[in-house]
């Protein structure tokens, strides 16, 4: 069905701006029809990586291959890598249809055909009736869809997106996530999506690339990144994780004086990660091992409520509960609770 050779290959790609190393030794393969999210904090090199793919930045060294062709010397306008900007970068001096037609016009498509194709895409994006509007007459969500139509009308084999949803209201973000995943499935093309929002990345991507300080910190499926972060950076970046330090001795880890089962871990000091939604809260000290912690605050987080605690060593602990659980627990700042987890919920951070 799909060609097994990757669509995009980054090989030893480096990019420096003066003394600043934006990207250090990047090696990455992106498959055909894959939805890849590149995620990381500001300045981690994710946008630079995307811009190098589009040809808007040239790598300082290394090669980028698209569809078997080395791209280093291919100018921007000869690439088939349409990008959706964070600012959308719609042309304010052109109307909606003219914006969508732009790419076809540059490729020399005849006026009648490009008009037809532009109108088809506008229709598909739910913009029928807005064909002759000026860009400044559209809402944020409508502009977003014009930008998508403008990039997709040329039927590219991949679409690059640079934080396209970051300027939208929360309810629109969820809707646009639906639009994007549906589009990607229908078109079967590769999406490379740069974001700092893990909810966007985890909701849409087949594979997530976490970058930090110009390097890939971890590549994996959203579940893997969330449940099994490979290092402290990823664990912290993903949030909603408890990072606990302890000492392992014979499949037992001792944290704050309590012994928890941790099968298969090497002896010595380690860090483990327990996801907030795997943390159990007890109002009274359980018979099994548990960490005593003081309730600090709660936060509504879409799918549930995150309770924040402070352990005896001053460490921050998080546990996700439902609203009814919260009602039963009746937490108040300063109240003591006990936190525990099932042995399979703990994941040892490598290194």
């Amino acid at each position, binding site marked *: 069905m799909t060609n097994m050779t990757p669509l995009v290959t980054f090989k030893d790609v480096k990019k420096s701006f003066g003394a600043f190393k934006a990207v250090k030794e990047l090696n990455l393969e992106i498959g055909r029809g894959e939805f890849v999210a590149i995620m990381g904090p500001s300045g981690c090199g994710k946008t630079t990586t995307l811009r190098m793919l*589009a040809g*808007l930045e040239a790598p300082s060294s290394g090669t980028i291959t698209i569809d078997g062709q080395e791209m280093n010397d291919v*100018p*921007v*306008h*000869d*690439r088939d*890598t*349409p*990008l959706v*900007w964070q*600012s959308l*970068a*719609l*042309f*304010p*001096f*052109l*109307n909606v249809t003219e914006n969508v037609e*732009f*790419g076809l016009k*540059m*490729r020399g498509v005849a006026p009648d055909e490009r008009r037809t194709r532009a109108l088809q895409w506008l229709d598909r994006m739910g913009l029928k009736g807005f064909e*002759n509007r*000026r860009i400044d007459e559209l809402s944020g969500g409508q502009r977003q869809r014009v930008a998508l139509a*403008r*990039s997709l009308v*040329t039927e590219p084999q991949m679409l690059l997106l640079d934080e396209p949803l970051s300027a939208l209201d929360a309810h629109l973000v969820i809707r646009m996530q639906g639009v994007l995943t549906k589009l990607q499935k229908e078109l079967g093309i590769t999406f490379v999506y740069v974001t700092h929002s893990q909810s966007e990345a985890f909701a849409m991507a087949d594979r997530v690339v976490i970058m930090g300080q110009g390097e890939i910190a971890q590549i994996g499926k959203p579940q893997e990144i969330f449940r099994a972060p490979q290092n402290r950076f990823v664990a912290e970046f993903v949030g909603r994780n408890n990072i606990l330090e302890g000492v392992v001795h014979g499949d037992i880890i001792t944290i704050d004086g309590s012994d928890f089962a941790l099968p298969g871990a090497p002896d010595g000091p380690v860090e483990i990660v327990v996801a907030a939604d795997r943390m159990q809260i007890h109002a009274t000290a359980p018979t099994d091992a548990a960490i005593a912690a003081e309730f600090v605050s709660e936060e509504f987080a879409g799918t549930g409520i995150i309770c924040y605690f402070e352990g005896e060593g001053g460490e921050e602990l998080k546990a996700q509960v439902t609203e009814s659980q919260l009602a039963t627990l009746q937490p108040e700042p300063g109240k003591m609770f006990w936190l525990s987890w099932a042995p399979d919920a703990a994941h040892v951070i490598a290194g």
Partner: protein
Amino acid sequence: MAKKTSLYEYAWRLPLILWQGLFFVGPLLLMVAMSFWLVRNYRMEPDFVFNNWDRMLSRDYFWNAYFVTFWRATLAAILASVLAFPASFALAFRASDTVRRWAVFFLIVPFFTSYLVRIYAWQVLLAESGPLNAIIGFLGLGPFTMLNSGFGAMVGYMTLVLPLVVILQTFSLAAIDKSLIEAARNLGANPRETLLRVIVPAAKVGLIIGFVFAFILSFGDFVSPFYLGGSNPPTLSILIVDTTKSGQQWPRAAVVAVMMIATLFVVAFAAVAAAYRKRS
């Protein structure tokens, strides 16, 4: 709820309103009125006759001067816009911030010196036996007559308007959202298409304002067509001077002036309308 403007706010606006009223609107109305006055025995008498208008608008020398002036101003505006653009483009997109800052500073420096002084300098440079012809002579060419010609006048106009046009163009080009340019390239536009289809439309307002300034300044200029153009053919500004000198014909000169101002109003209004025109 309409906010009442306080006396305090009016007090700050008043100086400008008074100034414009006393020294722009007032003289303008006086000049329009004067164009209907009569001159008897070399003295003006207030009246309301169309003699001056009739006389000026039916004479070929007026219309010749009018078209020469209009054509030269148009040519100067086109020439200045075209000559300025590559420099403005380089300053806006290629130069570093430091270079751009210095360049803008050096573009302001010419205004330190009186325009008249700069034109005298050109008289020396462009003279038949001047340094420019000496250099050309080394190459075995010339000498060329550059003074007292259309070419001379055009050099003068460029001296007057080029720095300003470069500044206006540079600011409008530098203000373009860079992602628009990248988006054009990303969508398959080569550098030339990007320039014509995105950069020029996006900087349209500044480019048109630069053109209009060049037109207005050249259209009304007296110094260049007189000292470098040799008054031949006369422009409207020269015509005004000649008319006032010959027989104190201030009312006829007023006709010429009113025609000039009317032309500039039309051109400036049309240009600003075109610059800010929103497409639907």
